[in-house]
Every structure is written in structure tokens, then in C-alpha cells.
């Protein structure tokens, strides 16, 4: 195999001589990307452009004509109390999921990281709700939170807390926090897995050195764990936030936005506007406003994270 070292430099020589990449090399690259480009082009980029176009048109979902209506859809959506209620509600889910959901995920990851036996068991159980579908979670909790003799009310009675029994999904003031609690039950396992993976990557020497210096548990967390977890924290935060803001199926199955519009969320409002009210144009305007807000949020978060990791 003495010929190998002699052969290796050849491609580099060829490239230098032709002054750039040979056409064949570019073609091969694009050939590998062709299926991805075709699919993303047809089913993601085209619809993305179409959605913006559709928001300036009127369409009932059936007729082939989609007349141009200018900003009429945006004016209609702008004065639609349901849509703006849904934006406020989803902000609530976002904030609760972000703080409470991530706090639970992080503390459970810290706890599992410190125990000696049964790590796999707890890891398996904690992510288990996360593999269920939104439909299953919605159906299951609509039974558990049912008024009267629903399981939760019944449990409260057994523990002598019968006075706390509620119509969990029927009372305007309670329905929103109840749905948020279901969301957290469903989603925190995901953040937990990422935090746990992040904790296992923290170099143990740091803790050993800190222990020699007499640092207590809080100091070790504050000055070692938390900074070391920063990249994971920002990813988990972004993903939890996006999942909370795009919540759809759980709400649709659990309350369908009710009572009134107290648990309405933007994705469900968009869906109803299109498939119940047959106003696809204003539904598209809603998705442009809402989608735009999400894109802005992601870009902002990525910019902040990017700056922090570069500093």
C-alpha cells in the first residue's frame, strides 16, 4: 500500500489547476441535495410564499377564484376579539411552560443526576407522557378533569379536600391554568432529557475542585452547573416556548377553546377560521401575523444565544 500517500494529493492538485471546483464536483453535490431541495421547495417554501399571498386574497376553500382584497383580511383579523384573546391565552401557556415547565424539568434532571440507582427507570417514566399523542392526552384529561365525579375531584374528596373540587374545564378562570397544567404534564419530559444529557457533559473535575475549596451545593450550582448548562438551557427554553405557542391538538380535544374563548389558542383560531367559518383569506392573515411573531421570536432568541456564546 505504498502507493496511497502518492495518490492522496492528486485531487487538490487538479483543483488548483482548474482554478475552482470542477463542474462535475458541483454536480455531484447538488445531486445529493436534489431530493431535499425538491421537497422543501414544493412543500415548504412554496406554501410559505402562498400563505402570504393568500392573506391578501379572499378564498372560500372551494372556488377556483381567489380575488385580491388588499389589506381587508388584516383589518378583519385586527378587529377580531377571538384571535386576540387566543394570542393572550397562548402567551400565558408560553410563560407558564417556560418558567414552571423548565423549572420542573431542570430540578428533576438535577435529582436524577444525583441518585445512584434507578436512573434509567426515572428517565424512562418521565419521558413516557411525551410519546403520547395530543389526542390521547386531550381525551385522557377530559375524563380526569370532568366536572362532578371526575377522577381529580374524586381524589380530592378522598383526601378530604372536597371543597377544592371544580368544574376544571368549564370555569373561565380555571380552564386556562388547567390546560396549562396538562401541557406541562405532557411536555416537561423533553426538557428533562436535554437537561440530563447536559448535566452528564459537565466535567466532574470542576465539582471536585469546588468541593476542595469548600463550596456548598448552592455555590456549586450557581457557579458551575448553571453556566455549564447555559447552551442547553437556551435550546430547551426556545423549544418549550415554541411548543407552547404552537399548542393545538391538546386544546382542540380538551376544551375546543372553551368555555367561551377562554382557552382559545392561535393555531385553533386559524383552523376554525378556515375549516369552520370557511374564511381562508383571513385565516391566512392570522397565520402570517402569528407565524411572523414566532419567526421573530426564534430569530431574537438565536441572536441572543449567539451573542452570549461568542462573548
Amino acid at each position, binding site marked *: 500500500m505504498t502507493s496511497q500517500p502518492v495518490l492522496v494529493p492528486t485531487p487538490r492538485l487538479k483543483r488548483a489547476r482548474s482554478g475552482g471546483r470542477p463542474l462535475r464536483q458541483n454536480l455531484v453535490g447538488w445531486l*445529493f441535495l436534489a431530493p431535499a431541495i425538491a421537497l422543501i421547495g414544493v*412543500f415548504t417554501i412554496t406554501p410559505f410564499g402562498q400563505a402570504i399571498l393568500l392573506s391578501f386574497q379572499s378564498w372560500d376553500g372551494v372556488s377556483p377564484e381567489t380575488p385580491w382584497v388588499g389589506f381587508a383580511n388584516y383589518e378583519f383579523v385586527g378587529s377580531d376579539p377571538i384571535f386576540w384573546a387566543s394570542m393572550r391565552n397562548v402567551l400565558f401557556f408560553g410563560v407558564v411552560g417556560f418558567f414552571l415547565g423548565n423549572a420542573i424539568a431542570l430540578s428533576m434532571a438535577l435529582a436524577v443526576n444525583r*441518585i445512584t440507582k434507578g436512573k434509567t427507570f426515572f428517565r424512562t*417514566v418521565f419521558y413516557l407522557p411525551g410519546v403520547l399523542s395530543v389526542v390521547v392526552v386531550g381525551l385522557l384529561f377530559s375524563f380526569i378533569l370532568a366536572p362532578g365525579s371526575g377522577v381529580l375531584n374524586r381524589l380530592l374528596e378522598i383526601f378530604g379536600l372536597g371543597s377544592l373540587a371544580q368544574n376544571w374545564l368549564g370555569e373561565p378562570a380555571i380552564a386556562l391554568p388547567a390546560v396549562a397544567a396538562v401541557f406541562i404534564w405532557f411536555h416537561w419530559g423533553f426538557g428533562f432529557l436535554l437537561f440530563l444529557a447536559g448535566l452528564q457533559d459537565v466535567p466532574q473535575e470542576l465539582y471536585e475542585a469546588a468541593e476542595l475549596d469548600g463550596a456548598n451545593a448552592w455555590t456549586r450550582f450557581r457557579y458551575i452547573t448553571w453556566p455549564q448548562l447555559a*447552551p442547553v438551557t437556551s435550546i430547551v427554553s426556545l423549544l418549550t416556548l415554541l411548543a407552547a405557542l404552537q399548542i393545538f391538538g391538546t386544546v382542540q380535544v380538551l376544551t375546543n377553546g372553551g368555555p367561551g374563548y377562554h382557552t382559545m389558542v392561535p393555531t385553533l383560531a386559524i*383552523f376554525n377560521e378556515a375549516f369552520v367559518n370557511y374564511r381562508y383569506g383571513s385565516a391566512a392573515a392570522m397565520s402570517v401575523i402569528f407565524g411572523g411573531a414566532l419567526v421573530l421570536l426564534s430569530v431574537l432568541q438565536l441572536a441572543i444565544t449567539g451573542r452570549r456564546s461568542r462573548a
Partner: protein
Amino acid sequence: MTLTEDTTTLADESAPERKVPRRRLRLDQIGLYGLLTVAALSALLPLIWMISGSLQSLPELLANDSFLPAVPQWGNYITAWVDGDLGTYLRNSVVYTGSAVVGILLVSSLAGYALARLDFAGKGVFTFVILAVMIIPAPAMFLAQYKLLISLGLTNNPVGYILILITSGIPMSTLIMRSFFVSQPRDLEEAAALDGAGPLRIFWSVILPLARPGLAAVAVIQGLGAWNEYLMALALFDDNALMPIQRGLTAFTSAETPQQQILLAATTISIVPVVIFYLMAQRHIVKGIGAGAIK
């Protein structure tokens, strides 16, 4: 206080000089296990109740005085399976999920390999497009995707649904595969190139077989995602014979308002495949989520 005494005795026997730290450690562990057990119970109890409820009779379930069924009503499962037409829905879901996963693996491993190993003009542009596309949220697009599928004549059509599933899985999977290929040694590819194999041949016979761990991680993550997809299925399908399980389950719920215990049985049946899959593949799930989100 008995617990404290116990740990002291244990510590005394094994290593007297480390008595104090070890006792603290023990107490600490007991507290941690207590906390984790509470969390585990809150994750598991709703599911256990679902199974228990699915085995009760309707009067028993409505009275709700006992957690466990007096006499397990296995018939509920048969009723749910037959009335809910779950066999059809599950078969559809298996076909949709399987096709989507195969498609995603093929397309994203090709693209990920090109991004990791091949050198060509426009590579940076494509990487940027992939990242940009990942930021576009589904609610901003699904209406226009639906309209597109109408114009292609692909509503109520498995092909349209599968193509949407594949497309939505490509960006993240491509990035996972790219980071996987970047970390692989180049020796085998170079040896194959010396033997005269072309890029596609190298990819198919050398790279793909070696990429099994990366492919497995992508497959389980995207498989779970495709299995649980709901929004697009809700928009696309009104023909019951074509619905995937999630869509079928809601169709069953809203159709003739079947009794609660039957619905619980149907819900339980619907999670069996995904829970078995999860328990078997959870190592890859952890790896896949980590690779997909962090790298």
C-alpha cells in the same frame, strides 16, 4: 428518626471515620428518591387510571368509587376495536409512519452527507435555507400546504400526507445526519474512492451501512413525530378509511358518542404500539433528541 439511626449504624460498621458525610449523603438520597417518586407517580397515574378505567363497566366508571375494576371487562377492548375500526386506523398509521421514516432517512442522509463531506458551490446557501426553513412554524404553513395539496389533487390521499410528513422531517434530520457524518473517520471512503467507486456508490455501499446509529436516532425521533402528527391529518382526511390513528380516534369520539369505558379502551389500544416502540428504542430516543436539539 429511625431512618437516621439506621444509616448511622450502617456507616459505623463500614467506615467509622466517614460517618458524618455518609449519613448526610443517605438522607439526601432519601429526599431525592421521595421527590422523584412523587414525580413518577404523577407521570404514571393518569395512564394507570386510563387502563383501569378501560376495564370497568360503565356504571362502575361513572360511580367512580374504586380505582380498580371489580371484574375486568375485557370485552370493552373488543367493542372498541370493532366499533372504532381501530385496525384500519392503526394499519394506516403504520403505513404513513413507515413510509415517512424511510423517505426522511433516504433524503436527509443524502443531504447530510453532502453537507458534511462533499465540496461544492452553494453549500453555504443550502445550509442557510435548511436553518431558515426550520424556523417557519407549522401553523404559518398548513393552510397553504392544504391548498397546494388540493391543487395537486392530493387531499384524502396517502401520498400527499406522506410527502408533507417527509418534508417536515427533513431539516432537523439533515442536521443530525450532517453532525454524525462529520464525526466519522474518512479512511473507508478514501479507500473506496481509490478502488474507483463513484460518490453514489460510496454513499450506498460504504457510508449508509456505517451510519446505522445515526439513522436509528433519526428514525425513532421522526417515527414518533409522524405517528403523533395531528394538525395536517385533521385538515386533509375526511375519508375514515384513510385516517391515521390520531385522526381516527377523534372521528370515533365525535361520531356517535360511544360510552366512556369504550373510549378509554380505544385510547389505550392506540398508545400500545408507540409505548412498546418507546420502551424498545428509548436509548436511541435520548440520543436522537440530544443530537437533534443540541448539535
